[in-house]
């Protein structure tokens, strides 16, 4: 659609993202006049109704923020509450939680790489259309996704909103023999992930690099899931407890959203690209090698290459899952007791699409007084807009339809999960 003296790129329903959002870019000649990533998902008000619930309910309730990454919510919740209560989990439980997270990463990354994002690169509307020409690729994707789901199902009963995570550990820990059953399929998945790195690296990437502030967890010994300090390539190095001092949200009326910034600086980037750039040295050798073979090394500043980075993280997750299963000994008790105690705790964990912050204040009866949740997509939201403001100028000469699709593709690089962000994003009825 054309407007006087310029044109408007408009996507009313952004497809192949989790949740519902819209995109609006207004061009005046080659200049971008306005960018709006509008989130119209209705608010569900989780932070409000968590008040008065017992802390033991938080992992199950917050899981319902997102059907795609429920484990991320469960892990941020249990770690924040454990920090509040001063609970130390056993090393065996710690390992199990890594395996649990591996399952979610494999499922979520396989879904995003092949089913949500690859169709953009290959010019298909969706994976179903893509399957007609690339059936073996899609079948491989489904098998990969399934092994991620199998890990979660085995450990948590079901793929979506698993039921085993608890403050202090798990309700029930799997037997060694149960985990062993996953090995042969995971070995296949590791090989398939290595192929995914090669395959994604052959896609065509628009020439678009930005000077990002990448933010991710960093742990001294391992690629991060649930522990470590929060760092950035611009000198940030903090504990989760300092998160709210260093990051701020503000309200942007047009997008109906609270957007996050690093205080005093601006937008930042969370997710696979940030983790990879800040933790490349902590990837297992097999993943490092796979990345280097396709000439992927930090700092990767091209947003569109995030699909390859996601594949590298698939390699990591499969290798890590195999390592955990090899080392696993069932814990003496699946969880430690969690006593009621007035306290406050914060935690950050790495959801598939970036850092997820939780804070809880708890009273003497174990009831939640206040809760704060900052999902990865709301943290990336301002960065997405900043990218589009820049990227749309590159597309000024493109036919409108292709330019629109390209912008959608750029948004999907962030794997935005709008269901997650919504309870934190404002819904404004626009009156024009």
């Amino acid at each position: 659609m054309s407007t006087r003296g310029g044109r408007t790129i408009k996507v009313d329903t952004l497809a192949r993202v989790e949740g519902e959002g819209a995109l609006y870019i207004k061009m005046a000649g080659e200049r971008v006049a306005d960018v709006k990533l509008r989130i119209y998902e209705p608010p569900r008000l989780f932070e409000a109704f968590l008040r008065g619930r017992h802390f033991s309910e938080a992992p199950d309730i917050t899981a319902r923020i997102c059907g795609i990454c429920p484990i991320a919510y469960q892990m941020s919740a249990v770690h924040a509450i454990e920090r509040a209560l001063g609970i130390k989990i056993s090393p065996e439980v710690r390992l199990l939680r890594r395996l649990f997270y591996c399952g979610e990463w494999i499922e979520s990354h396989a879904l995003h790489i092949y089913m949500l994002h690859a169709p953009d690169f290959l010019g298909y509307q969706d994976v179903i259309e893509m399957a007609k020409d690339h059936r073996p690729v899609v079948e491989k994707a489904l098998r990969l996704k399934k092994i991620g789901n199998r890990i979660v199902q085995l450990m948590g009963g079901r793929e979506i909103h698993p039921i085993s995570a608890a403050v202090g550990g798990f309700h029930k820990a799997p037997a060694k023999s149960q985990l062993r059953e996953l090995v042969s399929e995971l070995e296949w998945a590791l090989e398939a992930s290595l192929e995914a790195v090669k395959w994604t690296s052959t896609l065509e990437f628009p020439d678009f690099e930005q000077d990002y502030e990448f933010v991710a967890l960093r742990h001294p010994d391992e690629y991060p899931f649930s522990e470590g300090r929060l760092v950035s390539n611009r000198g940030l190095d903090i504990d989760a407890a300092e998160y709210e001092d260093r990051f701020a949200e503000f309200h942007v009326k047009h997008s109906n959203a609270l957007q996050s910034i690093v205080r005093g600086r601006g937008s930042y980037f969370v997710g696979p690209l940030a983790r990879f750039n800040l933790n490349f040295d902590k990837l297992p050798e097999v993943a490092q090698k796979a990345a280097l073979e396709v000439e992927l090394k930090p700092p990767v500043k091209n947003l569109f290459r995030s699909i390859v980075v996601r594949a590298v993280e698939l390699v990591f997750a499969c290798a890590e899952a195999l390592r955990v299963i090899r080392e696993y000994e069932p814990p003496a008790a699946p969880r430690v007791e969690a006593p009621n105690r007035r306290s406050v705790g914060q935690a950050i964990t790495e959801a598939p699409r970036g850092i997820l912050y939780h804070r809880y204040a708890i009273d003497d009866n174990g009831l939640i007084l206040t809760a704060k949740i900052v999902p990865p997509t709301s943290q990336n939201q301002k960065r997405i807009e900043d990218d589009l403001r820049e990227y749309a100028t590159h597309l000024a000469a493109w036919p409108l339809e292709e330019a629109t699709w390209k912008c959608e593709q750029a948004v999907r690089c962030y794997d935005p999960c709008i269901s997650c962000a919504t309870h934190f994003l404002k819904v404004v009825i626009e009156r024009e």
Partner: protein
Amino acid sequence: MSSEPKRKSAKPPSKPKIGVFKFASCDGCQLSLLDAEDELLGVVGAVEIAYFPEASRTMLKGPYDIALVEGSITTHHDAERIQEIRRKCKTLITIGACATAGGIQALRNWKDVDEFVRAVYASPQFISTLKLSTPIAEHVPVDFELRGCPINKYQLIELITATLVGRKPNIPTYSVCMECKRKANVCIAVARGIPCLGPVTHTGCGALCPSFDRGCYGCYGPMDTPNTASLTSQFRILGQNDDQISRAFRSFNAWSWQFRKASEESKRA
């Protein structure tokens, strides 16, 4: 539970069209369709996915043979949108606890929603939301309500299949206890005194929680004819106080009338 799906005409001109629509929800129930890894390519071979924004850029206009509706109604705009969807589909199936019972976000229904909004948002004047989170059936006629938070993907496939061929879906409505017994689980409520909502909860999950050494938390909502009063007494015997009992009934299916009543009665007691 609503009536069985309508019969389709005998000679479908082309593949039946399915639309997947989302209201206030977590996306998990529609993800179940993509999570049916072994069945997905078969399903999409048998139907035309006409509207499914989570999976595709293609968004075809109705009418649809089947509308799968996820999520609860929490805004004026959504209250209008569900009317439009009902007009455009032959069979409307709600998937999951949000669409069927208002979801966890229905916890606002007992509180002052304006206070809730102020608690979460810095500029509450920009939020437009209804006082209640309500299930789809409070707004339009629903042909089948599939339970669960999340739904069981095999039940979804069974339901789609049954709808397309015009038979009654094989989706039982008894309690979780039946499934638990069939798995030969030792009853955690009887043997270990763990409060469990299994006796009043709709089957479909595979009795997961008791199989993982914890009490059922009712994510499939009330069974056909639940005796919540009896279970409430049992919870008291197990040492649960009124507040705990009320919270147990007030989770993902809080606004279903049976659980709602039980939660209010335990509060009053």
